[in-house]
């Protein structure tokens, strides 16, 4: 179970960073 918890935490962090980055790119493009 510990392995799955670690995978979940790492995946959640990566997923959050990806979505935050997309929102950042999105806002930059819309300003053009």
């Amino acid at each position: 179970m510990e392995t799955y918890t670690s995978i979940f935490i790492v995946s959640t962090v990566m997923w959050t960073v990806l979505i935050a980055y997309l929102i950042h790119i999105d806002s930059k493009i819309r300003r053009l």
Partner: protein
Amino acid sequence: MEFKRKYALVLLGAVYIAVLYGMYNALLVFGPIQSTSKPMEELYRNVFFHVPINAVTYTAFTITLIGSIMYLKSRDLKWDILAASAAKLGIIFGTLTLITGMIWAKPAWGVYWNWDPRETTMLLLWFVFAAYFALRSSIVDEEARARLSSVVGIFGYAGIPLTYVSTTRWFSLHPRLKEFSLGPEMNSILVLLIFSILALFFYLLWLDVKVEKLTKIQKGGV
């Protein structure tokens, strides 16, 4: 293709929450399943990641096919931009399909790569679309680039049915969904993840097409 920023943000937020919920269920809620293959009892969890990513790969190359056909019919460069953007995302998601497959193959088969028909045909598809971009970067003239890459985009699509039938036509160790029963709860999470990742793909496609069009305007094109 224009849609309001607030809708895009709502879509991204919904996709973010849906994928988190799906991952939470796949990794922490669901228990082992009944399977004739012992390793699959736990390793089935990869289905929730591998299958949605692969569904997007197939969708992306299908859009490249449509964009390529439409370009050859209309000679309108907007279709070429769509085809190339979809192929770009197809390559990215195709790489992720191969990586998630390899991560699963190590504990299931003992090796990361064993030239299984499904792996080989998927790699072949990946190379065809890598060649698509090699071709695009080697032609300066816009019309010629669009015309020739459309032909590759159409013929390259043959790789999709080939990967699809690879597990039935040849001897393959790749599991098929009908070989193990996930049950209604797991199936609904799988469907949720497929639609969420597809929504993310369409958002990325829209974003990339927009960037490509802006780049074209900056260069003094269309």
